Every structure is written in structure tokens, then in C-alpha cells.
């Protein structure tokens, strides 16, 4: 094993189920100790990739290495990775402590020692006092922590998390995001985190891979994904950005390429357009109040183009459907993307 070996490496990995290509020629490297997210809509192949790493599924073509070791033919129980399942998959017939100690038990660790280590792992996820309970007696958030402790007690070199926060309510989810990130920093284990929530992916990850239809469309740090989307899909899915067709972008003096334009970059004009801005006249279709911000959905006159505009809530309380407004588009905020 070389020092530079990535924690996980995909080489042209494809997995098809009959004619359906769930994963289609994915190349990927995940560094040791990295918090790596796989982001995409359901059915985009991200969960299949996770299952390929865990060994529950085998690639139809291509190969996967874990810390430089080819994983073809290595069963799940012989891989140095552990998984936190979406439905937690806690063993219903065991109490919490035995659930956490399971991996140690099947490796033949004595009862006293494995229970001590399991208790330690439970303390790590702040569930120290619940060891005797059955999984059904726990709340969703607590089960999530048990699943986490059960995986971590085996000291995996890569921890796989399959939408682990999906079943939690908003407040708990935000708490767990902070905790997971802190835990990852403390342990230095590589985390591979599958999610369809772009906010979650952006806020927690060192790097994000955006999946669509079995392929990785873009991979990079969160800022890059958000500010410099490579394609139309990334712009819409990750940032909720507007996409201007090449003709429109060129027409207002921008690049001759489809451009992404974030809703909060657009300003409303009352006078002539300032330096570096293009002006567009548009009609408001809907105005929504979102607390801190106000979101306007507008149709640009003379073009078949709808845009979302986000303005501070304090401005423009009087807007309503049917009104005409002038939009100021800062040309510097136009980000040229690859043609679809």
C-alpha cells in the first residue's frame, strides 16, 4: 500500500441492472480523512455507489480500490468500511449495547471488553445511559446515534452514511449535521455521505460530487459547486440558480454560452442601469414571503424566460402579481457553463 493511496478510488465503474445503468462510468477519488458527499436526486446512482464501496453490490465493469487494495471479490465483512444505514438497520432482538458490540462479537472479542468498548462508543455519540434499551424504545434521533456508534466501534477507515439524517425533523437534522462534522474532524476517518439535500452537502463537506443519471456531473469543494456550476443541471439542482440560455446571455452583453445566475445577485432598478449591469423588464407572476428574504417569480418580456429573484424582505413589501419591474443583471455574476 502506497502512502498516497486514496481511501476510495473508482476506475470507470459501471453498474447496470438489466438495461438500466444505475452507475455509468464513474471515476472518483476520495482522500483519507475527507468528508465527501455524494449529492443527487433519487435514482441518480449515489446510493448504488455507496453499496459498491460497502460490497453489498458488485460493479458490472470497472474497479474499486479501498486504500489501494482492489476490492473485487472481497465480501462486505472483510472490508475496512462500515455503513450507517438509511433505516438504521438496528437488530430488533438485541439491546442497544449488544447492537453496538455486534461487530466486536463476531470478531471474537470477549464479552467484558466488547461491552466496555461499546459503552465508550455510545458515550461518544452521547447515548451513554441507554445501553439496556431495545431499539424500538428509542426515538429516531437516538437510533441514528446508535447506528453511528455501532459502525464507529469497528474503527472503520471509511465510514459510509446513506442519507442518515433523512428521517429526522429539521431541528434534529441541523444538530446532527454539526455533531457529525465535529465527530469526523475528531476521528479523522473518511466519511462518504450520501444525500439529496444540497444544503446538507454544502454545509458539511470538504468536497461534493453531484450525481445525475448515473454519472458524476461535477466534483469539487462546496463553494466551487455552488458558484461555478459546470452544467445547467448542477446550477438548478445545487443552487436553485437561474439559467440563462446562450442567446439571452449574449443579448445582454454577457458570454456566448448558457449562464447561471443566482437569484440573490439580481437587483431591482428604479432608475437607469448602473455600470456593469444590464436591464431587463419583467412581470411579476408570484411574490412569496420567506422570512429573511422575499422571492419573486418573474417572466422576462420579449423572451420565454422565467427568473427567480431573491431580495431582502425589507425591500419591496408592495410587490404583487401583475406588476412590471426592471431587473438589474450584474454581468460579473453571469457564470458561463458548458453547453448542454
Amino acid at each position, binding site marked *: 500500500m502506497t502512502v498516497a493511496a486514496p481511501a476510495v478510488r473508482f476506475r470507470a465503474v459501471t453498474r447496470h441492472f438489466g438495461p438500466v445503468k444505475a452507475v455509468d462510468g464513474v471515476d472518483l477519488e476520495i482522500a483519507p480523512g475527507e468528508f465527501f458527499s455524494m449529492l443527487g436526486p433519487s435514482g441518480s446512482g449515489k446510493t448504488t455507489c455507496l453499496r459498491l464501496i460497502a460490497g453489498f453490490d458488485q460493479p458490472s465493469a470497472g474497479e474499486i480500490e479501498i486504500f489501494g487494495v482492489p476490492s473485487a471479490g472481497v465480501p462486505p465483512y472483510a472490508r475496512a468500511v462500515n455503513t450507517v444505514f438509511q433505516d438504521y*438497520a438496528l*437488530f430488533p432482538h438485541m439491546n442497544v449495547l449488544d447492537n453496538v458490540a455486534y461487530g466486536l462479537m463476531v470478531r471474537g472479542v470477549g464479552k467484558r471488553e466488547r461491552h466496555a468498548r461499546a459503552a465508550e462508543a455510545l458515550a461518544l455519540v452521547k447515548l451513554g445511559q441507554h445501553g439496556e434499551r431495545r431499539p424500538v424504545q428509542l426515538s429516531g434521533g437516538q437510533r441514528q446515534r446508535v447506528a453511528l456508534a455501532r459502525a464507529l466501534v469497528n474503527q472503520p477507515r471509511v465510514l459510509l452514511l446513506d442519507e442518515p439524517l433523512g428521517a429526522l425533523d429539521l431541528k434534529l437534522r441541523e444538530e446532527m449535521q454539526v455533531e457529525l462534522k465535529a465527530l469526523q474532524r475528531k476521528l479523522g476517518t473518511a466519511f462518504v455521505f450520501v444525500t439529496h439535500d444540497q444544503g446538507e452537502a454544502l454545509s458539511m463537506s470538504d468536497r461534493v460530487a453531484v450525481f445525475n443519471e448515473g454519472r458524476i456531473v461535477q466534483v469539487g469543494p462546496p463553494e466551487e459547486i455552488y458558484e461555478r456550476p459546470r452544467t445547467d443541471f448542477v446550477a438548478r439542482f445545487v443552487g436553485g440558480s437561474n439559467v440563462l440560455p446562450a442567446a439571452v446571455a449574449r443579448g445582454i452583453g454577457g458570454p456566448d454560452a448558457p449562464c447561471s445566475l443566482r437569484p440573490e445577485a439580481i437587483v431591482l432598478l428604479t432608475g437607469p442601469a448602473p455600470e456593469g449591469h444590464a436591464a431587463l423588464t419583467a412581470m411579476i407572476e408570484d411574490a412569496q414571503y420567506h422570512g429573511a428574504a422575499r422571492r419573486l417569480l418573474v417572466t422576462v418580456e420579449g423572451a420565454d424566460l422565467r427568473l427567480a429573484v431573491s431580495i431582502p424582505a425589507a425591500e419591496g413589501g408592495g410587490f404583487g402579481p401583475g406588476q412590471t419591474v426592471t431587473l438589474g443583471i450584474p454581468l460579473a455574476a453571469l457564470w458561463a457553463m458548458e453547453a448542454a
Partner: protein
Amino acid sequence: MRSDRASRPLKLAALGGLLFLHVPLLFVFLYAFTTEEKSYQFPPPGLTLKWFGVAFARQDIWDAIGLSLKVAALATSVALVLGTLIAAALARRQFFGREAVSLLVILPIALPGIVTGIALRAAFNLLEIDYGLLTIILGHATFCIVVVYNNAVARFRRLSGSLVEASMDLGADGFQTFRYVILPNIATALLAGGMLAFALSFDEVIVTTFTAGQQSTLPIWMLSELVRPRQRPVTNVVAVFVILVTFLPILAAYYLTRDESQHK
């Protein structure tokens, strides 16, 4: 129907149906105490306990019970193994011929018992196998498999697939996963299936008529008493015994599997 209360005719019809199912069995109990042994006179001219003593002293009854217990135990053991294997194979996996296998499993109870019986007899004749314990068990195990299969497959389906994956993910190989995760989760279903199979075998008469030689299982003994009655109340005593013996495993099987309906 508008409220959560049933209409009176519906209630009466349901109650009537249930009475129809249960009242006849009560008469079996009553006739075990009658003093009349030559006919089925009602009401019984008098009541007595002597038939219990008579039945107790009859060696042929004890022999029949012994054979039935032996057959049921062995047939159930075979059915437990085979039924569980099929359930494990069919529960989740899709493969070519899956439908055919599931049809093959139900066929022994979907086809009339006499078909199974005479088919086995024809085969035993062809192969010149002597009738006896073995031939009875071969027949019984064949139709008991489906009972075990039905119980096991329901539980296998309820057992979340990710539990097995979780176990392997945590370092357990296939055999450890079976021992520590699958078996504890399907044990009660297997116990229930085994009990029902036992009850089914203990009671079976149609197939057994064709596969038994000179030996009598308890149902065969009863059948001959029904066709050519000797001491009628003795048959009732045995019938009462059979009702009680089958009642217990069925009740137990119910309690072992009732969580299933509650969890859904």
C-alpha cells in the same frame, strides 16, 4: 355502516356462522359421556365416565397415538428444514423459475389429497417400496413443507434486507449472520410453522390411507371406527383427546406469530 357499529342483520349472520362452526364440536364432548353405546341416541339416556377408563386400557389406541406422534415429529422435522430453505430462497430473490418453484410448493395442498395419496401409492408400487413408517412420513412431509414455508416466508419478508447487510457490514460472515441475526428473528415463525405442521400431520387421514401399510395412525384408527363402529363412546373419548391435543399447538402458533398482524 355509517357508524363504526355493524347492522343487526350482519351481526346475527356473523354470529350464526360462528355458532355453525363451533356447536357441532360440543356434541363430540357430550357423547363421550353417554351410556348408550350402540346408537347415537339424543338426548343421551344417561351419563358416565367409564369410557375414559375403557379407552385408556385399549392398547390399539395407544399404539395408534404412538405411531401418529412419531410420524408427526419426523415429518415436521423434514418439513422445517426444507420449508425454511425454500422460504429463504424465494423471500426476496428474483430468479428464473421462481414462479414454478412457488407453485410446486403449494401444489400438494392445492390438489385434492386423494391425488397426492394415490400418486404416492402408484410410485411406491412402481419402486416396490414396502409400506410402513417411511412411506407415511414421505407423504406427510410433502404437504407439511408448505405450512412451514408459509410461516417462514412471511417472516423473511418482514426481516428488513438491510439487517443482513448491516450484519455483514459489521464483519459477520454468512454463517454468523444466519446464527446471530436471521435465526433469532425467524425462530418464532419456524416454531409456529412447525407446530401447525405437527397438527396437520397428526390429523391427516386422506393421504395416509394410501401410504400406510398395516399400521394405524390415530386418524386411520378413528376412520375404521367410524366406518365399522364398535364401542361408539370410545371413539368420542379419542376425539376429545384429539381436539385437545391439536388445540394447544394451534393456540401456541397463534401467540407466536400474532405480532405480525400488529406490526403492519
